[in-house]
Structure formats: structure tokens, C-alpha cells
């Protein structure tokens, strides 16, 4: 496992380097060249232009610039934003990344779970009205024009019903005089999500063998965990601020979930249908096991493997959906930053934001790979 992890990490770093190389040469091939953005202005005297070119290192050969570009990337120096001059791109990323990570992590978990549970049911109740409605609805949501759908959601839930805020990620009035920054609260939220998931996994792992009371113990455990998390947050001084952020987050998460769950759902359905033809399902039925046990233990567990593999594909989709959602909900994360930077032709920030999205995608891929090793016993034997 350790060796596997190390090799995967090395692969990720290698991929990132390839990726930066591609980006560098894409920038090189860009019509007009990056220096024209700075020195296209005819009012700047030639001496000043010369100084700018020298300071940007544009007089050096391509190879040397490429090496210094890679070196800067490895040191975490992504340049300076043009529009928010002289703010370094790295600072902007550090400021905004937690917001995207929280949104992305929550939406991924919720949409994957929803899709898996629904897909399981769909395969089980093949051919009925339920299947047609959910398949059609799922396909509709999967291909719906996301910005438009987001607007409809805002209009219904924020505008008409007034349940959620219309836009933004916090209410500024509530935060005046707050003793800490919003990023600290975001950091704690990320920590909570991670700890919660780990504890949940531990709970499921340790209650495997409690045959007659498993269901009840697990239910009690989940309720206890949820209660403890909420109580801990409510008791801490971060409580009201955390709730403010969560309140702003609910509608975007619902939107991303609705847009993204169908991919997992339809795939789980296909995978289940294929699994249900296997001989061991017939054996399980012949043994007289209940339908629920056959479905959840024998079919769904095996049908899950291709679904987890496809989660990699799904991750890219969720990230894309998240970026659209961020722009619609004015959620000032990396997606919105990327779009605004692109619209104002702030190339360093665009490239920086894009690199960040790529890093998130690569690491999410790694997490899925690790999950896969635990799900598939064959991988454990080999690796």
C-alpha cells in the first residue's frame, strides 16, 4: 500500500510537470505574446519597454525561460495578477481555494451517494413506471443547461420562497467584528468533513460483525456522530459563523448534486444489471436470502467497482458543474476566479486558477484510487 501510494504521488508530480510544460508552450504559442499585454501601449517609451522586457525575462532564450518557469512553479510562485496588481497569484489562490474545496467535497460526496442509492433501486425495479420517470428525470438533469438550471433554483428557492440567500458565500453584516477570518472557518469545515468521513468509515468497519444488532448500532452511531458534530460546532465560538456559511452553501450543493448524480445513477444501474446476471446472484437467491440482502450485499457491492472507477470521470464533471455553479451563485471560489480572470485576460491568474483546478482533480483521482484498493480485495493481494 505504501509503495503504491508513493508511486501514485510520483506519477501525480510527473503529470503536473507535463501539464505545466503544455501550459508554457500554449502561452508561448499564444498570438501576440504575453509582453504585448504590458507594452502594447504606444505611450510607453521604448526604454521603459526594454526594462519591462528585461524584468519579465523575455529577452532570454525559450529553454532558459521554460526552466525558470518550472522552477517558479515548484517553489509555488505563480506570478503576479495583472488586474489585482501587485497581488501574487498564489495569495489569491490560498485565499479562495478553501471555499471551492468545501463546496466540491460536499457536492461530490452527496451526489455520489444519491446516485449510487438511486441506481441500485433503478436496476432492481426494472421496467416499471419508476424506472422511466427516474431515468428520464436523471437524463434531463444530467444534460440540463446548468447556468439556466441554477438560475431557476435561485429564483424558486431564494427569490420566491426566501429559504436561502440569493448569492455570495457569507452575510457581510454578520461578519463585521468577527474575531477571525472566514478562511479559518472554512478550514475548520474541511477538517470537520474529513474527520466525520473517517469516523463514519471506522463505525462501519467496526460494526461489521455485530450480526443481529448491526443496523440499530449503526443508526445510533450515525445519529450520535451527527449530534456530536453539531453540538461541537454550536458550543464553539465559530458556531454562528459556520452556520452562516453552511446556509449559503446549501443551494449550490443541491444544484451541483442534482446536475451530477444522474451520471453515477445511470452507471450504477447498468453495472447492477450486468451483475444481476452472474451465477452467484442465482446462488444467493437459491440459498433463500432475502431480496434486500441479495441486492445490497451480493449485487451492489460488486456493481460498485466499475462505478468507483467511473467516479474519476465524474469528478471532472462535478468540477465543471461546480465552476458553473460558482459563477451563477457568485461563490467567490476558484471557478469564479478562473472565469473572471479569463474575461479580463489576466493570464497569470487564469493559468494559476487552472493549475489549481488541475491539482484538485489529480488529488481527487488519488483519493478515488485509494478507495478502490480498499473496495477490491484483488487489488490488495497484488499491491
Amino acid at each position, binding site marked *: 500500500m505504501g509503495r503504491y501510494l508513493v508511486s501514485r504521488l510520483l506519477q501525480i508530480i510527473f503529470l503536473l510537470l507535463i*501539464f505545466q510544460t503544455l501550459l508554457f508552450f500554449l502561452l508561448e504559442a499564444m498570438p501576440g505574446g504575453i509582453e504585448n499585454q504590458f507594452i502594447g501601449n504606444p505611450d510607453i517609451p521604448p526604454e521603459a519597454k526594454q526594462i519591462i522586457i528585461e524584468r519579465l525575462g523575455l529577452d532570454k532564450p525559450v529553454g532558459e525561460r521554460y526552466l525558470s518557469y518550472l522552477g517558479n512553479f515548484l517553489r509555488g510562485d505563480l506570478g503576479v495578477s495583472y488586474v489585482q496588481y501587485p497581488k501574487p497569484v498564489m495569495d489569491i489562490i490560498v485565499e479562495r481555494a478553501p471555499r471551492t474545496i468545501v463546496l466540491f467535497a460536499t457536492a461530490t460526496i452527496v451526489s455520489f451517494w444519491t446516485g449510487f442509492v438511486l441506481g441500485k433501486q433503478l436496476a432492481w425495479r426494472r421496467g416499471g413506471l419508476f424506472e422511466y420517470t427516474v431515468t428520464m428525470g436523471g437524463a434531463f438533469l444530467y444534460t440540463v443547461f446548468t447556468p439556466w438550471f441554477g438560475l431557476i433554483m435561485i429564483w424558486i428557492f431564494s427569490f420566491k420562497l426566501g429559504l436561502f440567500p440569493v448569492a455570495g458565500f457569507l452575510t457581510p453584516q454578520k461578519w463585521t467584528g468577527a474575531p477571525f477570518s472566514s478562511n479559518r472557518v472554512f478550514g475548520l469545515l474541511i477538517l470537520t468533513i474529513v474527520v466525520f468521513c473517517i469516523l463514519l468509515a471506522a463505525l462501519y468497519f467496526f460494526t461489521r460483525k455485530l450480526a443481529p444488532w448491526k443496523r440499530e448500532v449503526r443508526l445510533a452511531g450515525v445519529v450520535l456522530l451527527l449530534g456530536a458534530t453539531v453540538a461541537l460546532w454550536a458550543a464553539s465560538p465559530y458556531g454562528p459563523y459556520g452556520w452562516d456559511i453552511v446556509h449559503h452553501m446549501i443551494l449550490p450543493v443541491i444544484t451541483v448534486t442534482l446536475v451530477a448524480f444522474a451520471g453515477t445513477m445511470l452507471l450504477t444501474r447498468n453495472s447492477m444489471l450486468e451483475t444481476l446476471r452472474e451465477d452467484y446472484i442465482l446462488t444467493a437467491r437459491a440459498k433463500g436470502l432475502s431480496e434486500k440482502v441479495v441486492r445490497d450485499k451480493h449485487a451492489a457491492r460488486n456493481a460498485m467497482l466499475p462505478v468507483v472507477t467511473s467516479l*474519476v470521470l465524474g469528478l*471532472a464533471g462535478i468540477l465543471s458543474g461546480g465552476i*458553473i455553479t460558482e459563477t451563477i451563485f457568485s461563490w467567490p471560489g476558484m471557478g469564479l476566479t478562473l472565469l473572471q480572470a479569463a474575461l479580463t485576460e489576466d493570464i497569470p491568474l487564469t493559468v494559476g486558477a487552472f493549475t489549481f483546478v488541475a491539482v484538485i482533480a*489529480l488529488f481527487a483521482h488519488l483519493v478515488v484510487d485509494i478507495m478502490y484498493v480498499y473496495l477490491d480485495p484483488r487489488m490488495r493481494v497484488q499491491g
Partner: protein
Amino acid sequence: MSETTQTMDAVITEPLWRIRLRLMWKGFKKNWALFAENKIGIVGIVIIVLFALMIPAHPILMATVWDPRIYDPVIGYDEILVEKEVVEEVTDPSTQIQVSIAKLDYYHLDPELGDTITIAEQPAPPSRQHLLGTDPLGRDVFSQLMYSTFSEFVLGILAALVTVFIATTVGAVAAYYGGFLDTFFMRVADLIIILPLIPIMILLGAMIDLQLWHLAIIIGILVGFGGTTLVLKSQALTVKVKPFIEAARVAGGSNWHIIFTHLIPNLMPLAFLYMMFTVTTAIFLEAVLSFFGLMDVNMSWGLMINVAQSQGYLLSGTRYWWLLIPAGAAITLLCTAFYLVGRALDEVINPRLRQR
């Protein structure tokens, strides 16, 4: 020996192309029966045909009934005059106008409270002249909707063709030769799969003026070298071990001959299925990028929503429904239709998914 040749000639009297055509027709009928079993595929086909009918309908209407000065999707303008009562507090926005707004220089009028003024109102609600109303710039929404259909189809089909061309060739070559080529293309595919398409397109949009055919080719390349290659390669691997490939090799067929006349035709059904999904992706991406204002197009469904947004009608809800609902619904319906056809084809091609 000569006797057998003679008997062979005697048996096959009709030309080869007729036999091939008959076999194709037979196969088509069989597959169509399987396809028609699934209602969702039929729904998709009906929607696609309805949209396709708009392509010839628009130029015909422009040439006959619609005056180009009014109905041109890009530069048309219709001045719709509305009588409005000048009041203090607006209770019915369709017949009343607030006094502070009516006094604006923009209207070149100086009304008093209680006057009735005649002003040009944009966006105008649906009427007999404008079936779906006009947009904030006074252009006919229905005309824009029909006009954009053509470019959406061209974009989708071009992207799908590029994808399938790349994916079948690369998939077949990688499966047939294996080794370094295989590893290389599979790693490239892995890399592309991980990256979300929309940020890539946003990044490219920041660097170049994206036109429709740029977009079609970029999507074609990314999707073609990405997920589609993986699927087609695994299919090619199962075809490669079939006896007829062995037979072709024994008969002296060269590698390229085997790949192009025996391997690739057997990948075509699956490739066709993935064409449908690529069309969905392409239309969706174009709409999103137009909506963001990163595309260099003069009219498209995404741009229609972009205009509504930039003019501030986004959260007007049902009052200006014709600015958002037709374009959004058109994008969604056409994407869903191609996706549904893809799903239905999946059940035709993959026998394990069929009912019973």
C-alpha cells in the same frame, strides 16, 4: 476446378453491391426493432427531428414572410410602441410607468403625472408578430432560436466526427500493435479524462477568440483522445482476437489492411454511440461558453441567455420568461435528445443491458 467456379457463378447472379445493401438493410431493420423497443430512444429521435426541421424553415421564412429588417436574428429591430400611463407607484407594469423613469432624457419626453405616453418598449412580450417576444435589443426571439439551430447541429456533428475519427483510429492502432504506442495513448487518455473540460475551454477562451469550428475541433480532439479512445480500444481488443482477423492475416492481409477493413468497421456501432454523447457535450459546452461571453459568435442559444444576463433580466423570474425559457429549454432539450438516443443505442449494442 473450373467446374466449381462455374457453379459459384451460377449461384451468385446478382451484383455484390446489391447483396451488401440487402444485408445492411436487414441489419438495420433488426437493430431498429431493438431500438424502437425502448421508448426513450424514440422520444430523443422525435425531438432531434423537430429541431432539424427548424434549419430549412428559418431561411424560407426569412425569404417569404419575415421582413429581414425586423426579423434578422442579429441586426433586426422592431420598434414596438406601447401606451403607458405615468403614475407615482407602478401596480401593473404592462400599462403603467413610473414618473421618474418616464422623465428620463432617454425618452425625449417630459410627461406629468396622469399623462399617457407612447414609448418603444423592449423586451416586448409575445404577440402575433413575435411569437416568443423580442429580446432587450428589439430582436425577434423565435427567429434567433431558429437561426441558431443550424450552427448547433454543425458544431455537434463536426465535433462528433472528429472525435470518432481520432478515437477509432487511435483505439484500433493501440489495440492492434500494443506496446509503446498503446501505453503512450492510454496515458494521454488518462490525463485528459482527469481534467474538467470547462476550465480548459475557459483558459483557451482567455487566450484566443474562440469560433465555432475552433470549438468543434478542440472538443473533438479532447474527447477523441480522452474517454472515447479508452472505450473503443477495449472494444478493439475483443475484436482483435476473433478468428476472422486471424483468417485475414493468413490470407496475407497487411497490418493496415486488417486495421482499416476488418477492425475499424467492427468498432463503428460503438463509435456511433459515442458520437451521440459527443454531440451532447459539444452543444452544452458551446452554450456555457457563449453564456460566459467567451465565444466569438454572432448568435447562439447561449448568447441569448448572455444578452438577457448582461441587460439585467436574469432574476426577473416569470415576468420576462421569453428571454430565458426558450433558449434554456432549447439547449436542454437538444442535449437531452442526443443523450437519450445514445442511451437507447447502448441497449442495442450491449446485449447484456437488454431486457430479459
